[in-house]
């Protein structure tokens, strides 16, 4: 997973889960992204780099706050641009499916 993907997944995973469960979900998402058709994965990677540019700049300046990712994701989910909305939707679907399949008791 690329940096932004990792940040999005970390934000989306339920805060009630322990580190082991979070790691399991992250591994599932990572494996799934690796399994995608190359052209879809390439498109997603391009989005990750593009959308992640500003947060990374903020990070370099010491202004990046992981808590702000939640608000950013809410904006992206409501975006008028389908690729932006679908970017979050895909990662959210993977996280939700893994969370409820791998850790039903905890979620």
């Amino acid at each position, binding site marked *: 997973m690329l940096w932004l993907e990792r940040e999005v997944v970390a934000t989306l995973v339920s805060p009630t889960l322990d580190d082991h469960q979070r790691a399991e979900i992250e591994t599932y998402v990572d494996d799934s992204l690796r399994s995608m*058709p190359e052209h879809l994965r390439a498109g997603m990677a391009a989005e990750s780099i593009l959308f992640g540019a500003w947060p990374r700049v903020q990070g370099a300046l010491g202004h990046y706050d992981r808590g702000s990712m939640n608000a950013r994701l809410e904006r992206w989910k409501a975006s008028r641009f389908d690729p932006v909305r679908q970017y979050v939707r895909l990662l959210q679907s993977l996280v939700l499916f893994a969370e409820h399949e791998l850790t039903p008791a905890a979620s």
Partner: protein
Amino acid sequence: MMKTPEATLDADVLVIGSGAGGAATAATLAAAGRDVTVVEEGPWIDPDALEPFSLAEMAAKYRHRGLAAALGNPAIAFAEGRCVGGSTEINSGLYHRLPGALAESWRDEYAIDEFGSDTLDSYAERIENELAVSRLPGAPPPSSALLERGATKLGWQAVEYARVFRYDTAGRGVKQTMTRTLLPRAVEAGATVIPNCRVRRLVRHGGRVIGVRCERTEDGEAEDLTIRAEHVFVCAGAIQTPALLHRSGIRGGIGSGLKVHPMIKIAARFPHPVDHGGVPMQVITEFGPNLSIGGSASRRGQVAMALADSSADYREAMDNWENVSVYYAAIRSEGRGRVVALPGLRAPIVTYRLTEGDMSRLARGLVHLGEVLLASGATELYPSVADGPVVRGHDELAAWWDAVTRNRTNLMTVHLTSSVRMGEDRSRTGADSFGRVWGFDNLRVSDASLVPDAPGVNPQGTIMAIAARNSDHFLADA
């Protein structure tokens, strides 16, 4: 992974793909005494090993773990099996014959020889006996009965679909996938099945295919394998079949004309628990064949994804997820798509263009689905439309007409057909009436790709009937 020196095998008939089309072809030809080899890209997995629709099953049996999509506005997510038995191992097992009126209209439109409903029905009957196609012996599960109840209240026609399930005396059903039925029968008749073997391309010589080049993986080691064959049947499904033909330099009439049944979904919350183990077998046919309404897999993970698709706050509904089940409306699309294999890419690029009429049909389907779910007692409906309002009463359904737009609608499909249409009209088809690829003596297609248009019903029965018919024609011709 280490590479070992190239191995070579010989076969009389080589079948590429082991799903509904490949298994029916292999079983028919092996029973007739032909020397049949089946190659399958995915592994052979015990059909009892994994829970249906679970994460483990998706990881093991689905191509790309289920993360494929046809590009377009909107994109359409789709799923294909990648294991011995193909999509028959992962589907719901619902079975339907091709409606006679459709068969006859396709016969006329594409000039397909021997494609009357009588012919197809005789093959369908054979398949139904072989697979023990049957209806549930007892009462339907609540998720299915709810659809029936809603339809009855509205005066709509609903039917219980038959399934490829064999039931024991206690009423327990076992899905009759290809690894449980036709593939073992083919092996018993002398066929060989080679799993974990991906065909890279066909080897051509003039108007014949003389073999295939494959990559076989065993215990993490890959080896190149060449299989020489007298006859080749490509049965890899509506996406992988045209992709393989493209990789082999065969393009005329191949890959264009892809058809799907786009599905729009609702996560419906009821005031009582609903079952989550299987897929409802009741289907509302009131608006068929262009629109059908039924139920989807509704494990906890799928319920969460469906609720989230609406963008509404779904936490309270998820806390009561046992009361939520997922339903769909599927349309026969006027639009069409394309499958293109590009050099250097393992996966083909799939595109699909929905027409304005399709979008309107999807909105209508969503509203009808909402009507029947409310009639069946649902208290909250979460549509698979971003910012689509959660509906709690009939008077709120009208809002969905405007909500279903290209940029807001989340669609998926599991039925893909028509990427190598059959018929004698060479300007509109990729293969003749019996699946022989134009320009080749010994290369045939026998899977969902041949079906000339979206059938509006689960296509497994149609695919198997066509494959059995084509195999008989091959045997008579040889």
